[in-house]
């Protein structure tokens, strides 16, 4: 009865933000499909993807909302920050302007999410090292200054992509363990599995196979 894809203990809500063309959709696609999408069209409004991962032996379903980077969609996309447990803030290491905008994205993220939201900084397109416009050290310093975790990734090669998503989940899970994230509140971005119900029928086995 162990039905793999449906067997999970928590749902974490993520949001991916950042300038247009930094590869947000490609990161999502790489993470959910393990493939690189070469001709990724501009996202219209928001898109949605899921994947189940494992953190400390717990199966966790990630519900990831990929937002459009274009300014004209801000009116729509900013409504999706609400209740995100994790925010992946992406810039393009080959375009300094996308890095320069990070502080405004960060302000948005801080204002629109709850204080426990884990914000993760991703420098995408690390495969294009030759065209690099933002050094690792500089971005790392920015991340440290703002208390963000930072990784350079490549949606194309898949390098570090898993780590970014998993590390974020680990931090959220850590927050739950610490008790700093209160699951009883609505909009925390995390939906816990309920305590095992003592259903009249099959209550016992239900514990073993929570599929």
């Amino acid at each position, binding site marked *: 009865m162990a039905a793999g894809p449906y067997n999970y203990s928590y749902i974490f809500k993520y949001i991916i933000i950042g300038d247009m063309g930094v590869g947000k959709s490609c990161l999502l696609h790489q993470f959910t499909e393990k493939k690189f999408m070469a001709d990724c069209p501009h996202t219209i409004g928001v898109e949605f993807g899921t994947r189940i991962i494992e953190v400390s032996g717990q199966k966790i379903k990630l519900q990831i909302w990929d937002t459009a980077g274009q300014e004209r969609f801000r009116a729509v996309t900013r409504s999706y920050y609400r209740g995100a447990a994790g925010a992946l803030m992406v810039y393009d290491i080959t375009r300094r302007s996308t890095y320069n905008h990070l502080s405004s994205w960060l302000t948005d993220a801080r204002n629109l999410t709850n204080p426990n939201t884990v914000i993760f900084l991703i420098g995408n397109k690390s495969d294009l090292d030759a065209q690099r416009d933002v050094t690792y050290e500089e971005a790392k310093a920015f991340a440290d200054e703002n208390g963000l975790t930072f990784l350079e990734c490549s949606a194309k090669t898949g390098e570090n992509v898993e780590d970014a998503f998993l590390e974020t989940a680990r931090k959220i899970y850590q927050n739950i363990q610490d008790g700093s994230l209160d699951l009883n509140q609505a909009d925390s971005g995390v939906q816990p599995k309920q305590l095992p*119900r003592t259903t009249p*029928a099959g209550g016992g*086995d239900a514990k073993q196979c929570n599929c």
Partner: protein
Amino acid sequence: MAAVAEAPGTGVPLPAQVQANPITKKLNKILDSKIETDQELLDALETVSPFLTENTLQRRRNLRRDLEQRSLETNIRFLNSFRKVRDAVEGVTKDVDEMSKCCEAMTNRLRATKEQTRDLLNQTTSLQNQSKRVEKRAEIVTAFLGAFQLKPEEAKALRGTADGGIDRNFFPALNRVREIHADCKQLLRTSQHAAALEIMEKMAAAHEAAYELLYRWIQRECRLLNVDFVDLNPLLYQAFEAMQERPVLFKYSLDEYNTARRSHVVRAFIDALTRGGPGGVPKPIELLSHDPLRYVGDMLAWVHQAMASERETLQTLLKACKPEVLEEYVLPVLSHITEGLCRPFKVRVEQALSSENQPVALYRLSNLFTFYANTIRASLQEDAALIRSIEELKELTLNMFFSALNSSVQRMLEKIVPPDTDLLPVQGVHQILLMLRDVLESHDAALVTVTDKKENFTRIFATVLDPMLQTLLVSATQLSPLDVAVYMLNCLSSIYSVISLYQYTDDRLEMIKAQMEANEDVLVSEQATAILKRTGMIDLYSKAAAHQPKQGPLSAISGMEAPIISSALGKFDVFLAKPDSYQMQQCSYLTSAKLRASVQKRTIENVLAAYGILYAKLIEPANNYPQLPLKSFDQVRELLV
């Protein structure tokens, strides 16, 4: 003596005379007898010796009698002993006889019994055979029952637990029932109709009861699902899988699920609106109600996200079902679950809208609705209440937008005054165009579909531009046609420069262009006429253009005499020397340099064309003109262009 003594020893037969004498014989015999070697004698002596204790005469005389006595005694003892033996033997004989009799009796009885048991044996054998047959049949029957009857534990599983629940054995048992029922159809093909029918009936009943139970159970389970995150009971997947067989019950079961989830979603929505996140961060959505765009946007985003989660939960619930079932039910169920959101959502949106009268804000709102209607359309049924609500709200905001736009335009048009002498567009025109630009700017290009956008733009232009142009025309009625043309051209080019920046304006631009051309034509023809008038060429031109060869030479026609023509040509030369000074003052009021140049160029062309016609007539020999101070057409063109 020695010879005699030796004789027996040597074995040499004794002389006949020795033998002949009996005494000798006897003597010899006695002498020869060797007592010590005669064992018998020794034994006898030995026997006698014990009771012959003293060797007396008396004793010796009595020996014989004693011996006889003893012999007699011995015999008597013998006799006694033998008598006992004989008695014993007789006893034995008697016993044996009796035994023999007994045996005989037994043999007889055995024989009799044998006689009697033969029947029994036959009977037994037949019974044994029968029993074997019966056993075989029993085996077959057991196998049959095994194949066509539920095991006790299966029957128990089908009856459910005491409180109406089911356990994991329920579904295998249910499958068994189904199998048996199917097998019975096979059975019907054999001769076992009655049995098959009976079993089928029984199985059908069991099946029915099981489904009844299962439905009740699902009902109860589903009622527990009105919570935030559902950890679905694994048995539920199987329950829904099994329910697929009963479309009606399946639908009812889904209805239960629907109802539970719907009430949950509504509650969660209200929570998000009024309570917000942990510790009020993020803030409750209702706190944003002063900013309708943000407020509505957040509500719609919440709905969108809730729908994604609901879809996942539903897909999990139905994961064991057939794909076509999933396809059939996912959209209707989601439509139904989200139906509950319509009312709270609509009420709030309408409230927020009631205080909004800015066209730009209203237009953005309508675009937002259009975007979400398109975004969630794929996840719901075509006629889902939520989509209907959003569409209605979109229509509402769009109508509000157009009426707000209309009243804004009207308000601004009231302030439109006649133009100054500079013939530039008045302030009101710029105001309206500024608003138009704001509206068009606010259109988030990709938020709505192309058709929607085109339609909206057409309507917006109709609402803004048509009344404006009308008002402008009315406001300019006191001006001369030339002034009107210039003024309209100035206004139109302002409009053109604004809307040409946007998409889907081709039709409107074409229209404006046509209007501009019409005004330009007026300007060109006015100017060309004025030039021809000032140079005195106008009469010459019209007469030359109207002249037909059958009317005779042109020079004979009054007003076309050579001297008149000569003087006109003289004036025309003055024009040719300084064509710019002949330009009308109004043309310099044209704001667009391009337009100015174009008007100038076309005026020259017109004048040139007129000259061309006149020139052709003048040089034609049939028209009988003397030598005139004529410049050739090419020369004139050279000078003007």
